């Protein structure tokens, strides 16, 4: 299937007789004209059409602020206008006249939660077979597929993640059935008619890779490679060899037949696409780190990483983040050694720790997952302050998704992606009260109409109900 479609694509291109050289890569999110040459890549062919919704200039004062980079302000003030954080500070921060002011006494403000690992849209609700679009399990090497082409923007899960989880940005990844699962896409959590309408402007793509049980199980069961962990690595390495050749030719401006998968891998080798690697076991992560050095690419984050605590030093030395659950463990062999202290141990070792969901329910409670990790750490003497722990849900995932210059913390000039919580967000008893995305109020617990109801839910029982 994979080889055949590549072959057909090649034949079609040859038949057109077009052989113009590659066009220079343009800025992201500017629609580019169709490529002219056989190796010319149309830059950004599915551009974001996301536009921030109008917002009202808003001040929240007397509130406890976790700024997402580790800072805390008590009795703080945050001022949103024009879709951006306009000012933030202590009680003396000047407040402009004639704008909406919320008193946040007893409440907390954080940057919007960022989930680096979601399958919303590609495995949407209802989870019927017809919606199963997250794993192109017809070949272990499918870097040519793009998760965005599976995203169903009507997934009710987006709205739940917003209202109950305060999630404002998420990375939607292909599944882990394949070694090279395809491209991820980063979305603003703003309901839209199209995927493009949710796409985070200017965000880099990710490349989903997977090691361990899943690829070897899926393809071993089909009687083909890989059926072992060594098979996983071998197919990975063979693929990177081809990708490096493709990338070298491309960089040299040499003519070659376009190959969607190779384009993605070449971008990963050049650091333009961030490698997001599903991997559970410590020893396998170490193998992948060596593989990345062998072929000259960087792993941005290991996802799930239930044994990250065993190699937290390696992760720190190699500048690799671990995106982890709070306490999910044991459901399969490679998750057997999961422990509740994984996140704080990685954090304490000086590596980049992220709390992720990988789940349409978990994404609604990432704050509680972080609280589990925080409590487990404190019990073993790792005393991480609340405001530092919030980096696991904010600036750390933002960095690992390549969007930290735009969101992920409450810094002046950044996107006004903000959650007002009705209590300490590490408490089970706390929920979002208001959520702003780019300064637009898109969830308000006190306003039943300020709550998304997807096309799927509209007219169904329960539509518009509090969820």
């Amino acid at each position, binding site marked *: 299937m994979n080889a055949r479609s590549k072959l057909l694509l090649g034949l079609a291109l040859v038949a057109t007789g077009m052989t113009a050289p590659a066009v220079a890569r343009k800025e992201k999110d500017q629609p580019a004209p169709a490529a002219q040459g056989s190796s010319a890549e149309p830059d950004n062919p599915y551009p974001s059409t996301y536009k921030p919704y109008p917002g009202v200039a808003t001040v929240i004062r007397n509130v406890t602020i976790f700024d997402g980079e580790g800072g805390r302000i008590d009795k703080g003030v945050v001022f949103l206008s024009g879709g951006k954080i306009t000012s933030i500070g202590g009680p003396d921060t000047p407040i402009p006249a004639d704008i909406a002011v919320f008193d946040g006494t007893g409440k907390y403000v954080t940057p919007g939660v960022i989930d680096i690992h979601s399958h919303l849209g590609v495995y949407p*609700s209802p989870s019927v077979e017809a919606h199963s679009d997250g794993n192109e399990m017809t070949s272990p090497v499918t870097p040519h597929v793009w998760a965005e082409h599976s995203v169903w923007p009507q997934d009710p*899960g987006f709205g739940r993640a917003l209202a109950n989880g305060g999630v404002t940005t998420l990375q939607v990844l292909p599944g882990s059935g394949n070694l090279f699962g395809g491209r991820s896409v980063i979305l603003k959590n703003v309901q839209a008619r199209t995927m493009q309408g949710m796409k985070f402007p200017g965000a880099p793509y990710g490349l989903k890779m997977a090691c361990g049980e899943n690829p070897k199980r899926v393809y071993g069961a089909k009687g083909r490679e890989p059926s072992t962990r060594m098979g996983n690595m071998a197919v990975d390495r063979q693929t990177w060899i081809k990708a490096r050749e493709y990338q070298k030719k491309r960089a040299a401006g040499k003519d070659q037949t376009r190959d969607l998968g190779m384009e993605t891998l070449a971008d990963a080798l050049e650091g333009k696409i961030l490698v997001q690697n599903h991997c559970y076991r410590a020893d396998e992560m170490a193998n992948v780190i060596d593989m990345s050095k062998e072929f000259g690419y960087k792993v941005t984050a290991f996802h799930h990483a239930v044994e990250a605590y065993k190699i*937290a030093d390696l992760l720190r030395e190699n500048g690799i983040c671990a995106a982890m659950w709070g306490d999910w463990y*044991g*459901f399969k062999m490679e998750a057997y050694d*999961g422990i509740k202290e994984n996140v704080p141990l990685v954090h304490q070792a000086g590596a980049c720790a992220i709390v992720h969901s990988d789940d349409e329910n978990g994404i609604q409670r990432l704050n509680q997952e972080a*609280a589990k990790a925080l409590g487990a750490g404190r019990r073993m003497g790792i005393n991480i302050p609340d405001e530092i722990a919030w980096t696991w849900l904010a600036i750390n995932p933002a960095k690992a998704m390549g969007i930290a210059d735009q969101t992920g913390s409450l810094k002046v000039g950044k996107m006004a992606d903000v959650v007002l919580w009705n209590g300490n967000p590490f408490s089970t008893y706390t929920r979002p009260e208001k959520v702003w995305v780019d300064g637009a109020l898109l969830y308000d617990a006190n306003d039943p109409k300020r709550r998304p109801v997807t096309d799927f839910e509209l007219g169904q*029982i*329960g539509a518009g109900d509090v969820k």
Partner: protein
Amino acid sequence: MTMKTAIRAAAALLAVAASPMAMAQTIAITGATLAIGDGSEPIQNGTVVISAGKVVAAGTGVAVPAGAKTIDASGKWVTPGIVSGFSRVGLAEVPGVKETNDINARTPFSAAIDVAPAINPLANPIAISRTAGVTRAVVVPATGNGIFAGQGAVVDLGADMDPITKARAFQYVEMGEEGAEDAGGSRPAAYLTFKMMLREAQDYAKAPASYDGRSKDALLNRVDAEALVPVVTGAMPLMIHVESARDILGVLALRQDFPALKLILAGATEGWMVASQIAAAKVPVIAGGLDDLPSSFEKLAATQSNVGRMVKAGVPVAMGLMDRDEALQLRLATQQAGNMVALNKVPGATGLSWGQALRSITSAPAEAMGLGDRIGSLKAGKAGDVVIWDGDPLEMESAPVAVWIDGIQQPIDNRQTKLRDRYATPVEGSLPKAYEW
């Protein structure tokens, strides 16, 4: 229970030097923020006395008996042990490793399957759940041959070789989407199958010797027919998994044909829509609590307010881990309960009071199983299942500091805590990590 406790106490006496467990002595836990588990709110400066494996008294102004071992729990919380209302604990070590997974089977048998002999008290998920304050669990088989899965059990999570609180505590049947699938593809087929099988069980009961389970027309073999007899007579509860409002009414109506059925609803994601009918039928529900997505067409009306709305309507609701992925992750019970409390601050939502929330993971599941007189709360005479927590147990930062089951103090370390200790620093010392134990 008494026998079991006695055996345990005897074993503890024999092994007292070597055993890490305290024997079932008289213990008074004092100064705690104390929650009884019966739906009442926590009280300050409470005392719990347990003796001979049972709760003697719990509340304020409880006298500490002479000779009791006193444990100062000032600044801490004390609750009954958590009871998981729906789980598969003890039936699998690693669910994804099929050799360790005894949750269901391809087999000629169905209703006669009995999980009790297969429960492994040494399974790591039991030790890990115990460390999280879970002391009892309802263990539910899954279907492998038709709509009936077999007979579930109620177990304790103690560190001993006798996990069974009640074997053959209930029969389990699928009647929603999964039941339709198990019956060949439709709900009408599931209803017909259900009725015909129960009638065959009645036939068996009338004349066991002449029941021919081997004929081509028989739906049930002899042992499965025999196993359904107590279901038809109401001697054994029947736990029915359904989710949609329609299916809930459909299965409640089964009592028109089989009036003695003692029903327990499992799932009931849309229960809030027909809560008054469930309450009128006096049927307890074991629900997931946090389902709020239309994850299937039988859950279109899912909301986290489901449990609160049903409780408000008078339905006895317990919580359990209905999701197959979560069935061994029993520690999630306190998170479910805490989130029910959170809903009280969400306009338009219906949650539970703190006391009701704790009840939904302690006495409510015990009562749903017909074991309310034995376990699930700190009322006098109940099993001495007690947990001391370092904070509010429904907060995710809290954890148990001591756990008793049947009055016997339990170990709360496990392979997770050992791994934690080994890797407190990831780098090797003077020997490989494998020597650090």
